[in-house]
């Protein structure tokens, strides 16, 4: 009984200490301005046959109507389109379908460059997830008027 109580107490104490440590870590600094807006991804397309002027403007307007797309640039001369999007709302593979049949678009990705020099062993996705957690637990964000 004593053992159980002692272990329970220890776990409880460790648990409370851990929670306090995480909260301290999260609230140690003011949040960042960039933590407030929703995260974005960047996509690029090659769109065949798009002409400068009205057609390029129509393509831009069409893209901006796709839910989740926040900004886009059409470079008609290069048949190039770049856009930012909210990954929760739309994925790059869906965008060409949204533009068809009026525009024949293909997802563009420059080939990955060969890795040179030392690389961070922690994937950047993990770092971003940790930052997101810190912002969520940072109560100082409620004191900032953005």
């Amino acid at each position: 009984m004593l053992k159980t109580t002692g272990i329970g107490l220890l776990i409880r104490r460790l648990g409370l200490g851990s929670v306090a440590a995480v909260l301290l870590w999260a609230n140690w600094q003011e949040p960042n301005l960039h933590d407030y807006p929703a995260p974005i991804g960047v996509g690029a397309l090659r769109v065949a046959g798009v002409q400068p002027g009205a057609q390029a403007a129509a393509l831009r307007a069409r893209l901006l109507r796709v839910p989740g797309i926040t900004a886009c640039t059409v470079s008609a001369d290069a048949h190039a389109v770049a856009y930012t999007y909210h990954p929760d709302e739309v994925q790059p593979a869906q965008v060409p379908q949204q533009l068809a049949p009026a525009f024949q678009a293909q997802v563009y990705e420059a080939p990955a460059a060969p890795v040179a020099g030392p690389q961070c062993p922690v994937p950047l996705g993990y770092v971003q997830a940790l930052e997101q957690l810190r912002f969520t637990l940072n109560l100082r964000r409620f004191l900032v008027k953005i």
Partner: protein
Amino acid sequence: MLNITRKLSLSLLVAASLLGTLSACKKNEEAPVAQASLYDRLGGLPAVTAVVDQFITNVVAETMTSNSKLKRTFDPLVQSGNSYRVASLRNHLIDQIGQAAGGPLVYKGKTMQAAHQGMAITDVEFNALVAELAKAMTSKGVPAAQQTEVVTILSPLKSTIVGQ
């Protein structure tokens, strides 16, 4: 007679009070009103974020052209599997422009010199980048005067970015 004198005194008192109040109001009107920060005049965080997102798409589209001036520096952003680097760039830009414009929070990233060390960015590349920022602001409806203010507060960074 006494009643008339009292009424006259009271009227004078009211008139004097009114004059005093009016002159105080005038003083308040003449007092310099603290001008809102550029951050607030731009439209706060939503406007800064919109400009930065538009700037990023402008830059990525520019790297896809055949005579691109920014391809050397920014091509890694559109290379497969590098989406987090774009997000990181966006974060730094929001923080930096937000702070420079008088926003509520501070940029905590590297110094510009440290961030651009070894990149050997040229004047041509820097100017092309500023042109894309100007296009982004125009596209998002930022008035010309405020565009000039943004460029003016960011231009001192040029010496810490170019030629590092």
